[in-house]
């Protein structure tokens, strides 16, 4: 049996799978451990992947050579394009997946990787031995690895609550991970307690869909992945229904029984995925809340009841579910529950997702205080890449806030006081128009190739695509329409836009009324494959805005270039405010840019810091 690995990944959830894949692709021998071999890439919550922000993350991971996009495409049973009319920055894909198919596809993919050894086994302790980490399993077996990525999700000291029923457990009846949490704590790693929850699963044949509104999927021309040929499936529908005053009354009447309100739960929940009891309490005036019924898969009768996450006793769940139109006869398959778990206090992390105090020890995923599959996968990829770079003695791979949502996510994690599970949102991105879903490859694939996560073949295809776009851009710049040409006349017929003078196609495309598809039609030109026309159109149409973001980004980069030494003595700096001093000591920002994003650090504090650093001749 192999005993030594370059990298060991603890946890085969969304973060762990992505991490292991990246490390192996970079050429390192990788051990991937999971508590249960049946539950690789298990989705404890919604069967849905993507949406604004989250879908952007998937595209970015895919552009860098990660796998969540490919697996989602293969396991989808419905795909929707969201925000199609709200502008290029926020357009996003969202998939409904078959959970079982997703797991199977991921498992098969990882099983095919020659450098990955994947097995079941609970890590109970980590020990530092000289330059290596020893991982000790519950069975007494042990391994050694030069770097370790902990991606244990919600398992660390997991505790499930259903009304007054409460027991130690991982999600959905899985083992909790207690020994490892205690072991890490003993090594000085600080945890805080978060909580999340999930709704009941119900039986399909007990639902009256005639009382609900059908939510069909879209037939799309592309999925998430840039690399995998897109194979659309006949979309399976979801269903929309609503709660009502009766539902809310039952919940209010039983609030004292909800673990969230009885005081049984001390962990902090997230505003981003509230429980139904939270919604009823916090928004008493809202007359109804949306409920989406979503299939858990094609080969199961289980349906997911999105919107009704709860910690109420099962009997109450049953009662309030039956007030919802279409669920009058509902049969619960599994009750909803809340789960509390340990997360690493984020100020211990550096931008590489390495724990500052433990060389070679990385954390990724929900353990870092995030919520969501996509957020977990993004961190898994970054931790994987950086574990690899750590092994080869290279500088960490850090994406800027101006380059990717992944950059925004990691930066937020390490500079923000996170008081609740973190979810990515487009409104967190300052450079939202630059970070579009359709241009993720143009932003990131170059990196992916350099990191060896993108194959030569993929890279070749990427270069060709880029060249095609460049060529078309030149075509638009160099070709003109004259006012009375047949094309201009057709343009006017179609759009009412009358050209006053000879105008370049590029200028014409900038007009709000003109779509690129229309231009191609008028010019009798073929549309470009995939989303290439979208890239082109957005580049031209939003040039002014994009240039503005670029200018902003230049300022950002200047502040990011000013590095703060890791052992910088903040106490020596006079005139820093108390609050700033405390926060700076706690978060230990790596650059002035990061420092500027820590709340409580004012511009005056930054200037003070800068002056002090220069005065002491620090770079």
């Amino acid at each position, binding site marked *: 049996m192999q005993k030594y690995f370059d990298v060991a990944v603890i946890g085969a959830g969304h973060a762990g799978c992505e991490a292991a894949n990246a490390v192996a692709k970079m050429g390192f021998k990788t051990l991937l451990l999971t508590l249960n071999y049946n539950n690789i890439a298990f989705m404890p919550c*919604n069967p849905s992947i993507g949406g604004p922000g989250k879908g952007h993350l998937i595209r970015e991971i895919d552009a860098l050579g990660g796998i969540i996009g490919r697996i989602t495409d293969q396991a989808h049973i419905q795909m929707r394009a969201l*925000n199609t009319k709200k502008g290029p920055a926020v357009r996003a894909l969202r998939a409904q997946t078959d959970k079982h198919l997703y797991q199977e596809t991921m498992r098969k993919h990882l099983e095919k990787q020659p450098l990955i050894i994947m097995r079941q086994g609970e890590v109970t302790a980590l020990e530092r031995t000289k330059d290596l980490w020893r991982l000790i399993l519950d069975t007494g077996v042990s391994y050694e690895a030069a770097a370790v990525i902990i991606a244990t999700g919600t398992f660390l000291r997991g505790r499930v609550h259903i009304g007054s029923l409460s027991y130690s457990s991982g999600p959905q009846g899985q083992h909790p991970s207690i020994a490892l949490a205690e072991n890490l704590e003993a090594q000085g790693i600080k945890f805080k307690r978060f909580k999340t929850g999930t709704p009941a699963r119900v039986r399909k044949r007990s639902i009256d869909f005639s009382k609900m509104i059908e939510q069909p999927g879209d037939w799309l021309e592309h999925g998430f992945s840039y690399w995998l040929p897109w194979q659309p499936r006949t979309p399976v529908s979801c269903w929309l229904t609503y709660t009502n005053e009766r539902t809310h009354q039952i919940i209010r009447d039983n609030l004292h029984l909800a673990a969230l309100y009885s005081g049984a739960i001390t962990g902090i929940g997230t505003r981003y995925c509230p429980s139904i009891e939270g919604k009823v309490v916090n928004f008493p005036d809202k007359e109804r809340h949306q409920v989406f019924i979503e299939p858990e898969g094609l080969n199961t009768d289980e349906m997911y009841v999105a919107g009704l996450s709860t910690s109420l006793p099962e009997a109450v769940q049953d009662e309030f579910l039956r007030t919802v139109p279409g669920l009058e006869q509902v049969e619960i398959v599994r009750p909803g529950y809340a789960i509390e778990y340990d997360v690493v206090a984020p100020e211990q992390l550096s931008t590489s997702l390495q724990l500052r105090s433990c060389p070679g020890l990385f954390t990724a995923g929900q353990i870092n205080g995030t919520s969501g599959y996509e957020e977990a996968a993004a961190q898994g990829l970054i931790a994987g890449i950086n574990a690899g770079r750590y092994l080869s003695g290279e500088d960490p791979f850090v994406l800027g806030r101006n380059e990717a949502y992944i950059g925004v996510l990691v930066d937020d994690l390490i500079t923000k006081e996170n008081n609740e599970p973190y979810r990515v949102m*487009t*409104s967190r991105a300052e450079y*939202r128009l630059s970070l579009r879903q359709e241009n993720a490859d143009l932003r990131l694939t170059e990196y992916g190739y350099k990191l060896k996560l993108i194959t030569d073949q993929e890279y070749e295809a990427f270069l060709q695509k880029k060249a095609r776009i460049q060529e078309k851009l030149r075509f638009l710049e160099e070709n003109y329409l004259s006012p009375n040409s047949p094309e201009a006349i057709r343009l006017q017929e179609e759009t009412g836009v009358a050209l006053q003078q000879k105008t370049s196609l590029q200028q014409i495309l900038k007009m709000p009324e003109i779509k690129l598809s229309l231009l191609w039609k008028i010019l009798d030109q073929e549309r470009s494959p995939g989303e290439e026309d979208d890239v082109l159109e957005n580049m031209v149409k939003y040039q002014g805005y994009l240039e*503005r973001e670029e200018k902003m980004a230049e300022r950002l980069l200047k*502040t990011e270039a000013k590095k703060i030494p890791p052992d910088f003595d903040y106490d020596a700096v006079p005139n820093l405010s108390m609050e700033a001093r405390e926060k700076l000591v706690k978060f230990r920002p790596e650059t002035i840019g990061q420092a500027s994003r820590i*709340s409580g650090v004012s*511009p005056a504090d930054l200037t003070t810091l800068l002056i002090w650093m220069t005065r002491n001749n620090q770079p």
Partner: protein
Amino acid sequence: MKEMSELDTIAAISTPPGEGGIGIIRISGAEAARIGAQILRHPSGKRITSWPERQVRLGLVLSPEGTVIDEVIYFLFKKGRSYTGEELLEIQGHGGYQNLKKILNAAIKAGARLAEPGEFTKRAFLNGRLDLVQAEAVIDLIRAKTDLAHQVALTQLRGELSAVVQELEDQLFEILVPIEAALDYPEDDIPPLVREQTANKITVICRRLEELLANADQGIILREAATVVLAGRPNVGKSSLLNRLLGEERVIVTPIPGTTRDFVAETIDLDGVPARLIDTAGLRESDDLVEKAGVERTKEIMKEANLILVVLDAGEELTPAEEEMVINSKHKPLIVLNKTDLPAVLTEEELKGKFPAAQVLSVSAKTGAGLTALKAAIREVLIGRRDFEEHPVLVTRLRHKEALEEALAYLRSVVQGLSRQQSEDLLAIDLRAALEALGRITGRAVSEEIIDRIFAQFCLGK
């Protein structure tokens, strides 16, 4: 993004123009001595290699082209020993503003950055040389040049502009938050954007910003003092007028044309409004080198003035040069017809007929006739008929004015975008940019607040 001043070395003229015979340039920052070495030379012309601390030395300042600008005295404070706490080089030159400006330009060419108002004090504060209260007092109160300006500074300290801007920010957040929420949660039920209504709301905010901006120049004048230039042919009585307005014999007056060779500036209080009156060399063609230089400087200073008083002599015919001066004036010209105690050759009526756009005031520097009216007219041109007691909220800083202008431009673009069916993501980008600009006045962190408000206002997520 939070703003911060870079750590560059800053330089500025530290005496207001016209104050005494010498002028001071201060250069503060790590590069002060290096810049000094570049622009200063020993009186012998040799390079300066040693910088004994706080010892007064004689030297020459060189222009970037290598010509001598001025003979000066200078001294260096080492880091930690100066007013700002940084390395600081002080150069004392010969008073003329243009001269000082040349020295300053040389320092800037050598790598210094022009200091913003109050920046020396700010650095002093940041380096622990002053506490915050002292620093603010220095910047906002000591600089106040009249009682009214002092009042305005006090209002500022109490944060009234900030309060008004915050109110506008709140209104903008209310518009932006539902848009942002819908962008991030397309499948939740959030009321859709009603374009026309939103455009109307933003238009109201734009108007409020326009109102604030309408007073900004005046506010800045109150804080920084207006520059008023006395211009005209030699011997028309410019210096006499300055003395009259000041109420003291500040400038030499002679019957010889071309008496004033360099300009002289004095600050006067026009019923609460501080104005820096600048007497200049009379504008005329001349072979005298010194006078020629004076005329050049006059033309330069006129470019920067808030107001130019074109002084004419009632006892003489109007010359083509004078006519040109009135016509080319970039502001609404204010013609001061002096020497009206003499038999009239040039009359107010004649001037009014010739320059219908101009305002003409008849005065006599000799008898003092018309001077009260002149003061009132200057004040009115500078800040309008306003009585500032009615306008407690004033923009008094260029930085604030620029922030308001930026916000206004973004909001106008939103209004336009709303009517042109521009997509929500772009509207949000401009709304955010407007909020970021206003945040430079109020110090509000926009991103965080948007997210907090989204979840406070809407029930989102499954």
